[in-house]
């Protein structure tokens, strides 16, 4: 497939690997922020191919994994108790809430629909004027523009039975939490290519400077990832603290101006709770006052539920890169994709699920 095959080219991969090997002289811990990058690293078997000096640490960039259990409970309550049509991206459906997942709620009769875009949810709202339609607006900066756009359009078109259950989170504050942790052992970052496509990468300069850490904006295909790793290793070996852009074919320094404007029109930055990590100040979005009528958490009386997390799940440590999924005593035993104890085992972008699915056993990791 054009524009993909080139970035999955075996010769290019081998060249990059040998250059990484030539460059590296000491151990480095590099964190890839995005779950999509984790997925690709494991799916393509890249973790196996890297020189032993390089340890990839998997970051918190899995939207499904960091959505708090309370929000999942609220989404379920909206569909099950309030009778709303709850629209969601597919991989939120299996995430365990306090008592059940959206998929189980669906089996109990809740009207829960998988959509590919919030605009689809908006059109469901237009087609069902007698029903309340709620879109579960989950994700990082990447999904914020279309979610914001759906609200702008709803307002313009006078669709009053549409709202968002917002659980948006932002990458830079999470990086700051990771970097300021005493146990942190990360030497360099691969920033998330798609997030930077929207936001650009100017906001990473202060982080890089403050913590003295190189950051390379990186894509998702094998050649992208290896090139990003090579760039990070070069910076580390030369003791350079810089922000570089591997994903230049898509990412501009200032990002996508129109997308950012749409986000700012609809959302403002607010405190957010991250599943497994806790409350991070100013780490997410909520709807601005001008769009309150589209905020499902204000439109409906939603009481926080049991907020019950599995006690033995070490998702928080996995998300902060402090532990590998296989270091969890429950991994592959009590916790599997069929019976996930924590969210990272659910989403295909979750580090635990990626390890479980593609590695199967440790000898192949």
């Amino acid at each position: 497939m054009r524009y993909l095959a080139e970035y999955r080219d075996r010769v290019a991969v081998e060249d990059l690997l040998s250059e990484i090997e030539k460059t590296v002289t000491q151990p480095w811990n590099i964190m890839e922020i995005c779950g999509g990058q984790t997925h690709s690293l494991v799916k393509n078997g890249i973790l196996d191919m890297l020189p032993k000096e390089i340890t990839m640490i998997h970051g918190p960039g899995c939207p499904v994994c960091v959505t708090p259990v309370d929000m999942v409970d609220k989404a379920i309550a909206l569909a099950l108790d309030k009778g709303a049509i709850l629209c969601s991206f597919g991989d939120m459906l299996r995430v365990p809430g306090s008592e059940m997942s959206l998929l189980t709620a669906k089996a109990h009769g809740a009207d829960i629909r998988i959509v590919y875009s919030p605009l689809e949810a908006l059109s469901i709202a237009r087609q069902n004027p007698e029903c309340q339609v709620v879109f579960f607006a989950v994700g990082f900066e990447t999904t914020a523009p279309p979610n914001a756009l759906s609200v702008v359009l709803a307002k313009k078109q006078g669709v009053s039975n549409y709202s968002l259950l917002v659980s948006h989170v932002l990458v830079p504050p999470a990086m700051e939490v990771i970097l300021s942790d005493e146990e942190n052992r990360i030497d360099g970052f691969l920033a998330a290519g798609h997030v930077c496509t929207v936001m650009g990468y100017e906001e990473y300069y202060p982080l890089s400077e403050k913590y003295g850490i190189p950051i390379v904006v990186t894509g998702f295909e094998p050649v992208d990832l290896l090139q990003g790793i090579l760039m990070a290793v070069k910076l580390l070996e030369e003791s350079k603290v810089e922000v570089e852009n591997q994903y230049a074919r898509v990412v501009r320094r200032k990002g996508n101006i129109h997308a950012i404007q749409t986000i700012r029109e609809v959302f403002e930055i607010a405190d957010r709770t991250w599943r497994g990590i806790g409350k991070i100040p100013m780490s997410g979005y909520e709807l601005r006052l001008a769009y309150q009528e589209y905020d499902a958490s204000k439109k409906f009386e939603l009481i926080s539920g049991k907020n019950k997390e599995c006690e033995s799940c070490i998702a928080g440590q996995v998300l902060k890169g402090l532990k590998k999924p296989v270091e969890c005593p429950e991994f592959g035993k009590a916790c599997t994709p069929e019976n996930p104890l924590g969210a990272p085992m659910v989403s295909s972008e979750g580090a635990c699920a990626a390890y479980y699915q593609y590695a199967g056993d440790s000898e192949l990791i």
Partner: protein
Amino acid sequence: MKKDVKFNISCPMPELDYDVITLGHGSGGKLTHHLLDTGVFEILDNEYLATRHDGALLNIDGPVAFSTDSFVISPLFFPGGNIGDLAVNGTVNDLAMCGAHPQFISLGFILEEGLDVRELWEIIYTIKLAAEHSGVKVVTGDTKVVEKGKGDKIFINTTGIGKLHQKGKIDPQRVMAGDKIIVSGSIANHGICIMSKREGLEFETEIKSDTRDVSGLTTALLDRFGEKIKLFRDPTRGGVATVLNEIAGQVNTGVELKEEDLPVATQVDAACEMLGLDPLYVANEGIFLAFVDGKVADEAVEILRSMEGGEEASLLGEVVENHPGKVVIQSVIGGRRVIPMLPGDQLPRIC
């Protein structure tokens, strides 16, 4: 709004006083008789149905394969087919996977009140054509009607009987290291076709379901290679990955694949990339996997490629002694990963 049903069939459409199915059509009374006489029997007409008896009397010599299946697809009509040929081909293929030559099938219809009668006729005509093409006869059946909201337009249950191929010895326990795995066509077409119809996704060229009868292909392989063919399996729900895992687990051998050998049509590949789906887990309806003695694999592929419906046959992988019970794929860039069985349906990713 009524669906615009298009016929490319020369048969005249049966006359029925109703344009939708009513509960009365399942009552067993006059309406039921009228539906059967003017519709089902007239279209599927053969000597077995002509007896109008409660069941069919069959005369079969020797060992037979016997299989049942149910079809509940939505949408009923999709590029490349409809629930009718899907039901016939699916049943015929299940028998073919047993190494049998399909002969007789039964049809059980569960109709939902309100079904457009013209849709029913089109489905039954398609069944007639598919059955004729496969050389099977519909010999018995049943029709029930459920209240609106209690079904999804039409469900079809089938049973099939076929005579086993004399030279065949299909048995998963005969699969062993050194056997090669052949796939008879490109993968993931049916699942992506249905998903794109269901979700209203449009691509530059229409992706068609691969629904087809593969019994001619399996018979040709058994004719030529007999016992050297160890196993046939059709990778329907759960796709190729699920079947390979089932066999690896059942026989306790490993399976090795190469990502670059996976036959995926460009459009289907693009759709999978876009939706975040792995084609290895997407459903197929008109292809099969053959586990064959490694020595005959190349010739078997050649035979399939020379036949209609087998043009895209290729070597998919091999059975190995290593990592028993696991399916391992070598990625295009040379890395390795396990292909596990999925807990449920693949769910499209957020971003």
